[in-house]
């Protein structure tokens, strides 16, 4: 069985937005944006720009026929700046011209006059200035105030985690063209076709049925095209609508990096209490989320931070507060893990600091506090089919941890420049959109008279292999060769009112909807088969491997013939079906409920080597036992895990986003923002946890997109562990990413000038 998409990819035949053959008369758009992070917008001067030969139009807020509003959760974000600018990169206008080059040149010539206001880039500063996106939220379990006296050790501290650029290889872009009747069709690189449709309709003042959005595939997204693909698609649509011409808008990489939001940086305070035996009794944490200048998805990200504040551990007394702070940066947004990684980093930091204080290895605390069956999370849900301990034990056994630790010790005793470190990283990640209403999907399945099958769903293919999974589902339900099944583009006229392809749940939700649609058609087919074979009822009929069986006996009726006959008998060979995840709910008044259909578990051990002379390091290996459920496509799932792990490692180590005090992004190119390359890749070994069948996932599988990213967090603590071998008495601040710069400045800080190295 071969993955169709991959065959096209390796031949260079797969098309992305910028590859589609363009119609005659195509125009190109370029965005003009604010170079000032905060101020009152006094004037926009387009005089010089409009004069340039080849410029066809320049559009600002004044040209919007509808409402200048693109906010999703909170209506607080404009398409084009009106009376103020709030971050560098905020769109002011678009220029449409005969060529990309002319459009870019003209966009640069647009000048804005701004009354500058103070710039805030730090979330704690924003909090002090009362600049919040939404009111803070708090989750409680047990009684935090009463628990501290039971603790032998109480450790307080803070932890910083940085932002992360998605760096989808295909930049943001869209292509829009007018269609008859005053509508517009948009080919967009978006995870949320419906969001693009809804916002375009709002901006253009059109009913949604006049806006068609079509998505072929995305060249990577990782959350960065969930909310943030919308603006560019809408701008292309606006220009196309105004000029009645096809318009393409592709952001150059640097502008993409400057204008779009990233993973939220967090600054957090923690207090953790443990008893003598290392059991965690209480955990109090406050998260300051750096949301950027508008809400975007920040409130939802914030919520998931709270859900994952205790990671894989049972802690009886918890108080977790999360505050979304408004700063003068581009609105930060969804990124694989969606607030979960930031939360897990803080609890792991607290455990690390506690272990340091107690003079033990962090893994002793981690191990003692892992979740058990029936344990309660701070949000009220209890664990079911909990695999926290099983995966941990299996890691110890499979990867022979005793041996690893011995060889690390030996290495460290024999080397004074190079030091090795290891860390364990257990994960527990909840599956479902935490906004319950978004857990819905639909599918449209056609069986054509030649027996081939077409499936449309709400799922957008962006490399996660959802198309291939959907094909599997259809081929399994009908029991036909997978070659018969084709997945279609994601299109708002075929599948309406879609949730974004996100939260790792697209295969679950759309797979289930596909299963239902196929079952509907199958039911009709069985009735038809029963009629043809003169069976008393369709319950005697089974289709297996394209052959119809009657009461277990093979008949001459095969798939193609059955379909043809069904068509002649005027049987419906199409079905649209709908799925909504059952049994989930959450009450935000009391912050309790059962928000997740299920959880994904796993444990990894990470080994690193640090060059303590130069401050550089190499991640040697990541060895994990991961709970995939009963995987329907192991090769796709393995690839998702490997890719996610690498993004987690990058986030913790070399991927550093730097804004200066004026809110200007210094790392605005691939030459300054470094993601893992092929040499960075460690030895990654992943074992599929055995006997894990998940009743809530499609064909008993589990969601895979996001959870493994969080194994990467272990690399931070493995590096800390190695640094400790070089400077045993040093106490390092917790601040991710731990770049080579931070390693060196930590190791040779003047504070330790008189402390001998090991």
């Amino acid at each position, binding site marked *: 069985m071969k993955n169709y998409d991959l065959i096209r990819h390796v031949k260079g035949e797969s098309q992305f937005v910028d590859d589609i*053959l363009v119609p005659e008369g195509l125009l190109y758009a370029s965005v003009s944006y604010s170079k000032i992070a905060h101020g009152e917008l006094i004037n926009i001067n387009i005089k010089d720009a409009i004069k340039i030969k080849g410029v066809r139009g320049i559009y600002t807020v004044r040209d919007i026929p509808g409402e200048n509003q693109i906010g999703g959760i909170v209506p607080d974000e404009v398409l084009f700046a009106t009376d103020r600018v709030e971050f560098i990169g905020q769109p002011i206008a678009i220029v449409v011209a005969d060529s990309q080059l002319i459009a870019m040149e003209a966009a640069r010539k647009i000048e804005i006059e701004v009354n500058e206001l103070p710039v805030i880039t730090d979330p704690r500063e924003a909090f002090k200035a009362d600049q919040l996106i939404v009111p803070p939220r708090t989750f409680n379990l047990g009684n935090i105030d009463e628990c501290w006296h039971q603790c032998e050790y109480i450790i307080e501290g803070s932890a910083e985690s940085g932002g992360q650029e998605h760096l989808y*290889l295909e930049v943001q872009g869209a292509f829009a063209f007018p269609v008859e009747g005053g509508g517009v069709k948009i080919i967009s690189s978006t995870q949320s076709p419906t969001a693009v449709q809804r916002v375009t309709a709002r901006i253009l003042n059109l009913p949604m049925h006049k806006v068609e959005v079509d998505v072929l595939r995305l*060249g990577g997204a990782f959350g960065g095209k969930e909310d943030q693909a919308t603006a560019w698609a809408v701008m292309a649509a606006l220009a196309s609508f105004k000029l009645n011409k096809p318009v393409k808008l592709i952001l150059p990489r640097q502008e993409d990096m400057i204008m779009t939001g990233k993973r939220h940086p967090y600054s957090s305070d923690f207090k953790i209490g443990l008893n003598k035996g290392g059991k965690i009794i209480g955990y109090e944490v406050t998260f300051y989320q750096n949301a950027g200048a508008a809400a975007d998805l920040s409130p939802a990200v914030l919520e998931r931070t709270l859900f994952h504040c205790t990671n894989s551990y049972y802690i009886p007394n918890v108080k977790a507060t999360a505050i979304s702070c408004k700063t003068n940066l581009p609105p930060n947004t969804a990124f694989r893990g969606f607030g979960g990684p930031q939360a897990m980093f803080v609890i792991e930091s607290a455990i690390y600091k506690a272990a340091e204080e107690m003079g033990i290895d962090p893994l002793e605390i981690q191990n003692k506090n892992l979740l058990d069956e029936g344990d309660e999370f701070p949000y009220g849900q209890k664990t079911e089919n909990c695999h926290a301990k099983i995966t941990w034990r299996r890691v110890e056994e499979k990867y022979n941890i005793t041996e690893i630790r011995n060889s690390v010790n030996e290495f460290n005793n024999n080397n004074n420049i190079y030091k090795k470190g290891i860390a364990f990283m257990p994960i527990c990640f909840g599956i479902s959109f935490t906004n319950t209403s978004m857990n819905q999907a639909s599918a449209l399945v056609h069986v054509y008279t030649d027996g081939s099958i077409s499936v449309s769903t709400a799922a957008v293919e962006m490399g996660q292999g959802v198309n291939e999974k959907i094909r599997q589902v259809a081929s399994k339900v009908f029991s036909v060769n997978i070659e018969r099944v084709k997945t279609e583009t994601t299109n708002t006229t075929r599948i309406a009112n879609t949730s974004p392809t996100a939260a790792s749940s697209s295969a679950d939700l759309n797979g289930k909807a596909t299963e239902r649609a196929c079952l509907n058609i199958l039911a009709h087919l069985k009735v038809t088969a029963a009629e043809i074979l003169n069976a008393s009822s369709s319950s005697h009929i089974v289709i297996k491997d394209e052959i119809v069986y009657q009461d277990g006996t093979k008949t001459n009726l095969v798939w193609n013939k059955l379909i043809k006959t069904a068509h002649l008998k005027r049987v419906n060979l199409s079905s649209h079906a709908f799925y909504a995840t059952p049994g989930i709910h959450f009450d935000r008044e009391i912050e309790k409920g059962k928000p997740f259909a299920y959880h994904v578990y796993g444990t990894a051990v990470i080994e690193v080597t640090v060059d303590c002379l130069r401050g550089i390091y190499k991640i040697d290996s990541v060895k994990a036992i991961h709970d995939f459920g009963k995987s329907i496509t192991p090769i796709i799932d393995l690839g998702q895990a490997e890719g996610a792990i690498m993004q987690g490692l990058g986030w913790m180590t070399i991927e550093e986003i730097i804004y200066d005090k004026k809110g200007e992004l210094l790392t605005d190119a691939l030459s300054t923002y470094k993601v893992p390359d092929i*040499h960075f890749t460690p030895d990654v070994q992943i074992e599929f946890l055995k006997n894990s069948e998940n009743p809530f996932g499609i064909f008993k599988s589990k969601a895979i997109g996001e959870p493994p990213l969080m194994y990467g967090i272990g690399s931070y603590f493995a590096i800390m562990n190695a640094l400790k071998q070089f400077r045993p008495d040093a106490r390092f601040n917790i601040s991710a990413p731990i770049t080579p710069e931070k390693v060196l400045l930590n190791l040779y800080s003047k504070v330790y000038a008189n402390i001998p190295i090991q």
Partner: protein
Amino acid sequence: MKTKIKFICNSENVSAEVHPGLSLLDFLRKNLALTGTKEGCREGDCGACTVLIGEFGGKEISYYSVNSCLFPIGDVNGKHVVTVEGINTDELTIVQESFVEEGASQCGFCTPGFIVSLTGYFLSNKIYNPNDAIDSMDGNICRCTGHSSIIRAAQKSAEILSGNITNHIDHISALIKSGLIPDYFSEIPKRLKQLKQEKISEEEKVVPNFYIAGGTDLFVQKWEDVLKNDVKLLSSNGISSTIIEENGKCIIGAAATVSDLINSDIISKYLPHLKEQLKLFGSLPIRNTATVGGNIVNASPIADITIILLALNVVVHLKKENNERKLFLKDFYKGYKTLDLKEGELVDCISFDYPAGNSHFNFEKVSRRTYLDIASVNSSIYLEITDDSIITAHLSAGGVAPIPLFLKKTSEFLNGKTITADNVTEAAAISQTEISPITDARGSADYKSLLLRQLFYAHFITLFPDKMNVKELA
């Protein structure tokens, strides 16, 4: 401006009249509608645009990978350009098949670039090993897979092809037979020769606004300006790319690429470790095009080749028409990106005395990401030692001043000194007085100062492991 070009793209002959400074990427995608070659960054840092260039190197055609986003279309004249479309055969090729089997592609945007790089490895080498195969993709970034599956696919391809290729006499035919490349490759030498015989119209005489060597700096910094101005390609301007020995001197043509340095026997003989150290320079496609002259003239304060050459105390040979002059590289830099270079003057070559038998050389570079990254700080050292004491010392440091810095005082201090921890720490302290680092995306000023000290120690610990250790120096 426009010039006529003729070349073979995949299996087709192409002729066009274009601005010679147009990027090959734009030409492929827009003029030829070959959209398998992708644009991911337009600055040589992602590899999605990788293509192969084939040209005669001796009797056979040799193929090498380049970033088409930085490659001037004028330079493909008379050559064979291979894009992913030109690799496709009826069935999947060995490389493509390995990628599919290992799931080494997810969103697919990076994939054509990887396929081209890896295919290029098998085309341009005759003995295969998995690690070299992996190295050939050091200029390709995949954000989806995390590279593990790509590594497996490369290993698998290398294994299959190593087994397949027994007859090395006609490499290309063997590769066609093994299913690595399509048939038409066998006809390319003949067709290229024919192409060469066709007369390419004389270039107009123009005073260019830009000279382009490899384009790896120019196209990153000013590709839009290049398109609006008159340009001249140094490849057609008589600047040599050879590396020769002459009268006790090594002479490197300014057009020599970093790959030329790596592959030079002369360089390997005198500086045996340089080959490994230069793998820290850019990526394979960048090394294949980036020139020594470009590195020197671009005058970036962290230019790796320049930092190495400063420690070798090289002489720069300049020429303008028939006027020639020379000066020490260390005297070439006047201030941030200002040079002792007159209008119209070109770097012809550089020369230096062979490293003496009692000499020691080292190069250190630290960047945020070890490979395909610009240094936060780099440094080079050249020492000649007689009877335990240093008789000649040349040290250089990058990323710590507005220019690539020759550490004059530090070098002078070390003259006549013995190699002891005390002398090394004192020299390190002196070097700190010569630098003026600034805070930028590559690190804070404090970090760069500290890092230079550490790299300084690293030179001595690497060169004299018996005399020095980290505990004494820290």
